[in-house]
């Protein structure tokens, strides 16, 4: 099988390397990169991340990766945001009032509500609402979450977890998907999701 080129957007904050290594493990030619040409050639694009909304968005702008991300999402290639990479897809976040997000998805990221510890830092069980190829084999799996903010509830929430109430765990449709949990840190089920994504990128590469 071919190893599809997947660009893991490198905006320089925190542990982005684990995402790259786990995609490699699941059959991708994954590159941690900020190179425009390489990103343009990639069959799939991943916006990984850990950290706070404000500094991460600033780093995306400073590296020009904000435009790269918008372009990749708009041109129909498989796109996967991870954790803060999910939150950055929205128009903004309560974590950083006044800071514009990528605006690829509508709405504002909100502080986790209810009488819960913040961050949610634990493994939690996934409940799939809308089956899709990306979530194949994932229903009722346990995945690793670490976050204090979450995507707004909307029709594009494809899977949930329960943390003092329903919390968006996977959002997306079409070619743009994102997970609040860290698939690269979620043992076998996490690797399964990344394998599903790599397969989508491989299919896209054949079509292109």
């Amino acid at each position, binding site marked *: 099988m071919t190893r599809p080129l997947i660009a893991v957007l490198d905006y320089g904050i*925190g542990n982005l390397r684990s995402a790259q290594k786990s995609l490699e493990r699941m059959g991708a030619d994954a590159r941690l990169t900020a190179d425009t040409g390489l990103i343009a050639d990639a069959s799939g694009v991943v916006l990984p991340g*850990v*950290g*706070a909304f404000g500094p991460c968005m600033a780093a995306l702008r400073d590296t020009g990766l904000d435009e790269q991300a918008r372009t990749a999402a708009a041109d129909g290639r498989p796109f996967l945001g991870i954790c803060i990479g999910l939150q950055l897809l929205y128009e903004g976040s309560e974590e950083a009032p006044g800071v514009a997000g990528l605006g690829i998805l509508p709405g504002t990221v909100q502080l986790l509500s209810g009488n819960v*510890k913040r*961050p949610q*830092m634990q*493994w*939690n069980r996934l409940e799939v609402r809308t089956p899709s190829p990306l979530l194949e084999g994932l229903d009722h799996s346990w995945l690793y979450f670490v976050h204090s903010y979450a995507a707004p509830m909307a029709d594009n929430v494809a899977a949930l977890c329960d943390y003092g109430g329903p919390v968006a765990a996977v959002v997306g449709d079409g070619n743009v998907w994102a997970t609040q949990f860290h698939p690269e840190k979620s043992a076998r089920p996490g690797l399964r999701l990344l394998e599903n994504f790599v397969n989508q990128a491989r299919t896209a590469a054949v079509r292109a």
Partner: protein
Amino acid sequence: MSTTATVPSNARIIPCLDVDEGRVVKGVNFVDLTDAGDPVELAARYDQQGADEVVFLDITASSDQRETTLELVHRTAEEVFIPFTIGGGIRTVDDARRLLRAGADKVSVNTAAVNRPELVAEIADEFGSQCAVASIDARRTNGGSFPFEIFTHGGRAPTGIDAIEYAIRVAELGAGEILLTSMDRDGTRDGFDLELTRAVVDVTNVPVIASGGVGTLDHLVEGVLEGKADAVLAASIFHFGEHTVAEAKLHMAAAGIPIRPADA
């Protein structure tokens, strides 16, 4: 700040490996390991057993060996697909950045943060609270003006600092998690200091990892049900092959604790 959380977390089991110059310090007794001294192989084994996270405590004395530690983190990120924390000798934001860039998920700060708690805020502001772990080594004062005192330098150096006040402080500064070790219990196998654990849980609203003293699987259960810890850390009961992480999880689940099954 007082805790308001009413929804219990799913508990986590965290094996801890002491590492010196890239090698596991305490003997580890798995029969079929290629290299029982290789922390990466051990961490991968714990990942397979269903461990929820792994902690490396780097006790390398010389800062000349920093590259060895980075190499360890680098290799771990390629082989281990659960979160891992590295602690030991982290004094600056740059120290933290190097380890996170190499593939660590969290950095645990101890002595340097006791000396200068702002370090916790600096790391949290730069990389996010989720990767800033404040490690607290505490002993009972047995009748002092406060109940628990912070010790540094592997539990040898008293500081005169109230451990509970310090826990409140680092949580306010942005620590995403507190790794709380009872130096009275560490190595005793007598169980966690549950009063210490509970005291810190009750005054903070971030996850607390109980550490120090685990000798039986019941101790893990006590840490969660009585100590109210979010996670339990243990070393010897796993390293010496007495129990697997999977056994520990079954035992905790049987006690009614919500936890990810080992075979999930």
